[in-house]
């Protein structure tokens, strides 16, 4: 196989077949949902946050292999990180983990949906709990410009 289909390597398929951190957290501190209007993929992320740290994170929803693999990797990266660190997670952190740096434009939206949801969850939490409007505005802008 050549070209764009190269993205379907072992790791992607494994993650999509057996997603990590898949499910719901019933007593979450924050939950956020977003969908990709182009393809109908949708992702929810639930987080437990203690002492400004993500102590648990789960995602659920419907998505393609790229979307599911990236969601898995993203939740792995996020778990245990402080909110400041979560804020700094960039799209390349997710893409490079899966060798998707050169993903074609139309699929980038699949790869980054969960990151968009994560940022949405973070600013929802910050707005609700920390009243830090500067951070919230910055995050909102960042989330809006992700792709």
């Amino acid at each position, binding site marked *: *196989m*050549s*070209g*764009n*289909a190269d*993205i*379907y390597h072992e790791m992607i*398929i494994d993650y*999509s*077949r057996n997603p990590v951190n898949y499910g719901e957290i019933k007593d979450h501190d924050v939950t956020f949902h977003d969908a990709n209007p*182009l*393809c*109908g*993929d*949708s992702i929810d992320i639930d987080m437990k946050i203690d002492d400004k740290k993500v102590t648990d994170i789960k995602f659920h929803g*419907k*998505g*393609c*292999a*790229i*979307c*599911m693999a990236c969601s898995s990797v993203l939740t792995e990266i996020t778990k245990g990180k402080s909110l400041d660190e979560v804020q700094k997670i960039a799209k390349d952190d997710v893409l490079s983990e899966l060798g998707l740096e050169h993903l074609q434009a139309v*699929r980038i939206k*699949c790869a980054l949906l969960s990151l968009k949801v994560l940022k949405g969850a973070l600013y929802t939490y910050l707005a609700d709990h920390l009243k830090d409007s500067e951070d919230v505005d910055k995050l909102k802008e960042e989330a809006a410009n992700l792709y």
Partner: protein
Amino acid sequence: MQSTQSSFENLRKDFPILQRTVRDNKRLVYLDNASTTQKPNQVIDAINDYYRNYNANTHRAVYALAEESTAAYEATRDKIANFVNIKDRQEIIFVRGTTEAINLVAYAWGRPHIKEGDIIITTEYEHHSNIVPWQLLTQEKGAKIEYIRMDDNGELILDDLDKFLATGKVKLVAFSLMSNVLGTITDAEKIVEKCKAADVLTLIDGAQAVPHMKVDVEKLGCDFFAFSGHKMLGPTGIGVLWVRKSILETMSPFHGGGDMIREVHKYETTWNDLPYKFEAGTPNIADVIGFGAAIDYLSKIGMENIREHEIELTKYAIEKLSKVKGLHIYGTKDISKRGGVISFNFADVHPHDVAQIIDEEGIAVRSGHHCAQVLMERLDVAATSRASFYIYNTKEDVDVLVNSLNKVAEVFKL
């Protein structure tokens, strides 16, 4: 023209795009015709000819070029009248496409006529363009939108319609003649008959049906009918709205501007005759002319022949695809009740992934919700893959599609 596979195969030479290769030098297998179709030289040349030889604005100027452009523009109106059997050419309004046509009705008919408590009916298998304009209208007016449900076979449950009509509050029933996802052909005559008996207007979205089968608007008996040029070999940005004249006369203008007026004074304006009252501004002249060439092309082949060709292809494709382990086809298997549209899911592989892998084989299929999220909810899926056929598709295209699914199975270890 004979309705044989070989004569249809001969048509391929008229389509320059089908001569190119894609990806790794693969033959293009274009199976996204429910979305838009490719254009034959005849259509491309007609548009080219207009811009090269007689480009001028229509209807007003008296010079030679304008006379030619007006004649060509108006000739398409007559071709459309013939093509779908519309008796009065004044009832034919050029719009950008089906979406604009339905929005025009929602605005220019709906706003003056729909009141609080009224009901507008649509169906579970509509395209967003036949849902969202009605949501906007009913929300504005305090009216309600209701849905005729679909059964597991992909056919409408018409008992729902009876139930809604019995309320006496229904003002309009809007439905597509063919589902863009399942290919189901709606029993339009039955719906129109029920609505007529209840004195309720009907709007038919013909975007998927008109390109693929003989449609007779007069016989359908509806009140509004819409379709798009680009799904039937014509250019993008041109479509048709037909409205029964007695209703058209009760409608407010849609857009104000040039060409739609009779006289404009500082504080009042009188409207132009039909259909120009609804065609404000310089129209899409080139594409109307291109649309005319597309209708000529289809008429020459004959819509009955096209339907027959697609039945043969669809039957062949359903047979082949049904043998692929893990592949699920949505909608009815009764070929007389469906057009050349096949939506499917392959095991638990997301349609996006299917589309991407088979794209490497030169195959263009659509993956996603197909602008029919209400239907996706009903089917309880996020998305489907969809292959849809047209006159230039062959059994070889179907074979390439079926074989490519082996690659998907390989990658996803099915």
